[in-house]
């Protein structure tokens, strides 16, 4: 029974291979089939059929790539779609339907946005090559200046990578509308090195006196100017005292406002006004957060307060010790309650945990078991390692891996759309030229392959478009919700996703970093010449193929 089935399977396999084989190899296929009847044993027969099918499939693939290969019995317009004009027409009709369906996707705003995101890394490379990093912002800023639109200017000021341009736009925005003075704080957080920082901080402190943010920024700038890069250690005694005074002011402040909610509000107003629906530029270009040195400085100062409290405790000044611990706890509560980012909430939590631990010990020393139990609970709750796993606002909901995977799918889909579109244009051109009566034999020969390319590229185009649309759609919703409703709860997912689309898909992070270093931090000229070289090579290769196809004759019979 098994023998019969194996023999039948081998026969079907070889027959199928003969059916798809190019005409000039079908006789060889029949020859192999003829021999199959004499091969002894079911397994040997199967192996014979497998080997023979392999030969025919290889010939089929070769004939698709080089249609004239071994095609001595050349029949014009022969090949896969030659035997049936109906089959050829059906293939072209299916191809046209797929192309039409794919084009319809461009009518959907989420798809247009997805396509823009997918091709953004390549677009960015050419911008870098042209040494024009922010052409869109430059044009937006010009429009805002022309319209004397302070909000448009502020929108650009907080995003510009060029510090001097950022400062100029911020000052112009505040001149037009003094209520936008908070923009100074965001620009300083982005470009802490600017000369205007100290002047602006003084102005901001007069405007919003109780905000802990300004003494924090001032303290950070003192540490930065006194320390080598990457080290936070004021060396000078005077600077150390000034730094401590600024930090003490921050820890005593009654409010903390990073103004990130005002940036979101600005997005809501400016994006629809200028139809600037570019999620990368709006949400991902800047990642608003407190700089790490500010967080580290807060922890360092909190630790010094705890140590000073312990010293007072050792001297028997329990009230003084309690005040020191409570300063840390209050500051932690403030940052946690009024912060907008996961980093700020996390910092607030860890400072509270740091304060509640000695407060618990102090309560035990005072014999206040109720307070001791409460502080023990709070200390354990806010412990960033062993405590409750809180979901901070602004944290990623999808997870980094999902964002990376989706980014890779979007990038590949975008590239596939471009590739299939290019193939379609070439194949359709060949079909149009080949339909003329005076078409060269080379063009006639290429027609069946061109039909196949039209069909497969159109299907590929549609599939890539569907994939791109479905993968990007959730991010489109996040962007729309953030812009239209001001709900930025899932912005982190969008930012992670957009960040991942800026790196090459499927390549480990370290290699991506290397590629970034090679291409982005070096000379833009090098990048331009690299891509120009790749493009020229591609065009040269394509021209060579076209010349061989269009001008080549069928191979003459070998001697």
């Amino acid at each position, binding site marked *: 029974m098994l023998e019969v089935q194996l023999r039948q399977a081998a026969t079907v396999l070889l027959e199928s291979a003969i059916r798809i084989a190019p005409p000039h*190899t079908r*006789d*060889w296929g*029949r*020859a*192999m*089939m*003829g*021999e199959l*009847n*004499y*091969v002894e044993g079911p397994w040997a027969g199967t*192996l*014979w059929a*497998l*080997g*023979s099918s*392999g*030969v025919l499939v*290889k010939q089929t693939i070769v004939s698709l790539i080089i249609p004239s290969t*071994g095609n001595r019995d050349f029949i014009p317009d022969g090949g896969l779609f030659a035997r049936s004009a109906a089959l050829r027409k059906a293939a072209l009709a299916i191809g046209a339907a797929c192309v039409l369906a794919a084009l319809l996707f461009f009518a959907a705003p989420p798809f247009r946005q997805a396509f823009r995101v997918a091709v953004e890394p390549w677009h960015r490379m050419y911008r870098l090559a042209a040494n024009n990093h922010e052409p869109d912002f430059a044009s937006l800023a010009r429009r805002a200046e022309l319209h004397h639109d302070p909000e448009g200017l502020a929108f650009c000021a907080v995003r510009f990578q060029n510090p001097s341009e950022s400062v100029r736009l911020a000052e112009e925005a505040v001149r037009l509308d003094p209520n936008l003075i908070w923009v100074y704080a965001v620009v300083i957080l982005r470009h802490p090195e600017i000369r205007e920082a100290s002047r602006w901080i003084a102005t901001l402190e007069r405007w919003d006196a109780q905000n802990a943010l300004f003494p924090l920024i001032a303290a950070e700038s003192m540490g930065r100017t006194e320390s080598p890069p990457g080290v936070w250690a004021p060396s000078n005694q005077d600077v150390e005292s000034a730094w401590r005074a600024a930090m003490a002011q921050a820890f005593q402040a009654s409010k903390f406002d990073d103004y990130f909610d005002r940036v979101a509000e600005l997005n809501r107003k400016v994006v629809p006004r200028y139809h600037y629906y570019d999620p990368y530029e709006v949400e991902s270009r800047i990642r608003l957060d407190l700089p790490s040195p500010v967080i580290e400085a807060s922890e360092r100062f909190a630790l010094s307060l705890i140590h000073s409290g312990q010293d007072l405790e050792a001297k028997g000044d329990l009230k003084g010790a309690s005040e020191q611990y409570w300063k840390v706890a209050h500051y932690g509560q403030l940052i946690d309650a009024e912060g907008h980012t996961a980093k700020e909430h996390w910092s607030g939590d860890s400072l509270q945990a740091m304060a509640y631990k000695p407060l618990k010990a102090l309560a035990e020393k005072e014999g206040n078991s109720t307070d001791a139990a409460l502080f023990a609970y709070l200390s354990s709750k806010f412990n960033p390692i062993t405590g409750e796993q809180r979901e901070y606002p602004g944290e990623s909901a999808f997870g980094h891996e999902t964002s990376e995977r989706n980014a890779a799918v979007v990038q590949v889909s975008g590239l596939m759309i471009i590739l299939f579109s290019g193939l379609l244009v070439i194949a359709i051109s060949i079909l149009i030229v080949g339909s003329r009566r005076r078409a060269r034999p080379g063009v006639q020969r290429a027609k069946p392959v061109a039909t196949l390319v039209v069909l497969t590229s159109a299907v590929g185009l549609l599939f890539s478009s569907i994939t791109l649309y479905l993968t990007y759609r959730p991010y489109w919703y996040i962007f729309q919700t953030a812009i239209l409703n001001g709900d930025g709860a899932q912005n982190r997912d969008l930012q992670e996703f957009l960040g991942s689309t800026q790196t090459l898909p499927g390549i480990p992070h370290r290699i991506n970093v290397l590629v970034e270093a090679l291409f982005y931090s070096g000379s833009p000229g090098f990048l331009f010449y690299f891509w120009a070289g790749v493009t020229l090579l591609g065009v040269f290769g394509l021209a060579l193929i076209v010349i061989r196809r269009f001008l080549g004759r069928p191979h003459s019979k*070998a*001697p």
Partner: protein
Amino acid sequence: MKTPRISPETLLVLEGFIERPTEWRYGYELSRQTGLKSGTLYPILMRLEKYALLEACWVATEEGVPPRHTYRLTPNGLEVARTKLSEARPRSMVRQPAFCNG
């Protein structure tokens, strides 16, 4: 006269043909004789035929069974086979031991 690339497997096939140079041979028979699988043997036969070193024809068999393809070297093929085999033999002989039991 153009000749195909002669691989060790092609030499085996030529050797198989040259044993009975005038006879028409079947593919499966050649496969058994040379030990080559169909996936290796047929591309060689196709290449030899392309360079006109081999001629092929169909022979009818019993009723209900498909005809069989048979092969034989052309005069050119015979000449190339003899030349290539004579070139290859001294090299293959070097690899054999000078003395062996029996």
